[in-house]
C-alpha cells in the first residue's frame, strides 16, 4: 500500500496540495483509510491540516460553530451542544466516535452520515476557505467538491425543538436502517409554524422531506395532524439497498418511525 501522507500547518497549504491528482483529505480516516485497507487504489496521497481552528467548538449567542476536525466524541461531551449529543452518539462505537470527524461525516455515503442528517435539519452552513455554503447545496455537490471543509455553523434550536432518531438492528451500536432529524417549531396554539425534516438512507446522501414539512404546517402534533405529513414523507425518496435493509423495507418503515418521532 503506497499512501503518502502530507501534513500542513495551514488549511491554505493543504488546499494547494489537494489539487494534485489522486489526493484526498484525511479527517479521522475511518472511511478513507478503511478504503485503502480494502484495496482502493484510487487514492495515492492523503493530505491533512493540523490548524487548531479545525478542532475548535464555539457556542455563543445561540449559535454554534464546529470545526471540521471535531470528533463525534468531542461533540457528545460538549455542554453547549447537549442537544446534538444523541446524534453524535449515534455514530459507530466508542472508538469510531473518538476518530470520526464532522467534516468526514458530510462526505459519508449512506448508510453512513447520521450526523450530517442532523446538520441538514438544523439548516447548517458549511464553511470552506471560499466562504459559507448552505448544507443542502453542499451535499448535492459534494462529489465534485475539492476544497477542505473548515467548519459547520448553525443556530441552536430550542431544547424541545430538535428531534433525532436512528433506527438500527443491532443495539446499542449498529448501522442505520434509517435516521431522521427534525426541527419543529410550534405557535402558541400548538400548531406547527415551521418544520425542517431530514432523512438518512433515503438516498445516497441526506435528504430533506420537503413535502412532509409542508404538510405539517398549521397542523397539530397528534395522529390526525401528522397523517398527511406521513403520507407525504416518501415523496421523492430513493432509499438504498444494503445488507441491513432493502429499499422497499426502508420506504415501508419510514412513515412509522417519522410518526413516532413527531409524536414523541
Amino acid at each position, binding site marked *: *500500500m*503506497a*499512501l*503518502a*501522507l502530507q*501534513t500542513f500547518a495551514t488549511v491554505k497549504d493543504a488546499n494547494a496540495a489537494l489539487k494534485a491528482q489522486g489526493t484526498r483529505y*484525511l479527517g*479521522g*480516516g*475511518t472511511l478513507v*483509510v*478503511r478504503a*485503502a*485497507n*480494502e484495496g482502493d487504489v484510487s487514492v495515492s496521497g*492523503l493530505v*491533512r491540516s493540523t490548524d487548531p481552528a479545525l478542532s475548535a467548538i464555539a457556542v455563543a449567542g445561540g449559535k454554534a460553530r464546529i470545526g471540521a476536525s471535531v470528533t463525534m*466524541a468531542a461533540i457528545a461531551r460538549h455542554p453547549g451542544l447537549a442537544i446534538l449529543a444523541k446524534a453524535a452518539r449515534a455514530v*459507530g*462505537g*466508542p*472508538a*469510531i466516535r*473518538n*476518530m470520526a470527524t464532522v467534516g468526514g461525516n458530510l462526505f459519508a455515503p449512506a448508510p453512513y452520515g447520521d450526523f450530517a442528517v442532523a446538520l441538514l435539519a438544523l439548516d447548517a452552513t458549511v464553511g470552506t476557505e471560499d466562504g459559507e455554503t448552505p448544507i443542502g447545496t453542499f451535499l448535492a455537490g459534494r462529489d465534485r467538491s475539492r476544497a477542505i471543509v473548515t467548519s459547520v455553523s448553525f443556530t441552536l434550536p430550542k431544547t424541545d425543538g430538535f428531534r433525532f432518531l436512528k433506527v438500527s438492528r443491532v443495539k*446499542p*451500536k449498529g448501522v442505520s436502517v434509517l435516521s431522521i432529524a427534525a426541527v419543529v417549531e410550534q405557535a402558541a396554539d400548538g400548531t406547527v409554524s415551521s418544520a425542517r425534516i431530514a432523512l438518512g438512507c433515503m438516498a445516497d446522501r441526506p435528504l430533506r422531506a420537503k413535502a412532509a414539512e409542508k404538510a405539517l404546517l398549521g397542523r397539530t402534533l397528534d395522529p390526525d395532524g401528522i397523517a398527511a405529513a406521513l403520507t407525504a414523507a416518501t415523496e421523492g425518496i430513493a432509499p438504498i439497498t444494503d445488507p441491513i435493509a432493502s429499499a422497499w423495507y426502508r420506504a415501508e418503515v419510514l412513515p412509522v418511525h417519522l410518526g413516532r418521532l413527531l409524536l414523541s
Partner: protein
Amino acid sequence: MAKVPVQFTLNGSEKAEFIDSGTTLLNALRDKVGDTSPKGGCHQGTCGACSVIIDGELRLSCLTLAETCNGTAITTTSGLAEGGVLQPLQRAFLDTFATQCGFCTPGMIMAAKVLLDHTPNPSRDEVVEALSGNICRCTGYEPIIQAVLTAARANSQNAA
C-alpha cells in the same frame, strides 16, 4: 518510497522507527515495534480487535496512520501486566472464562480499561455500550461483561 520517522511512547517506553508513509499504526506496532498484542481482524474498523489507547482515548489502530501518532502516549494490552503479574482486569477475564480463542481479548481489554479509567463503577449498560465496537465470535459476550463488572468490583474494594 521515502521513509518517515515516527516517535511515540508505547506502554511507557520511548519508541522511534522509520516507516513507509501511510503505514497504519496496527502494522507499525506489529511489524516494526514488535508489539503483537493489537490484532488485525478486519482492517475495516468493524471488529475492534486492533483497539489501542492513544492519549487516554480508545482508537482503532487499523484505521489510524502511524505518522499521526507522533508525540503521543500509546497503551496496548501487552503493557498492562507488571513483572508478570496480571492486572485485575486481565485476571477477571481469565477467572470468568471471558477469553476463549483470545483473538478479541486484547481489544476488549483496551475498551474495558478506558471505561474503568473514567467510570470505576460502571452499570451493566455502560459496560455493554463501552464494548459495543468490539466483536467476539466465541464467548457470547456475557462472560466478558461479567469480567469487566468483576474487575470494577475488585478495583473499588482495593480502593476502599
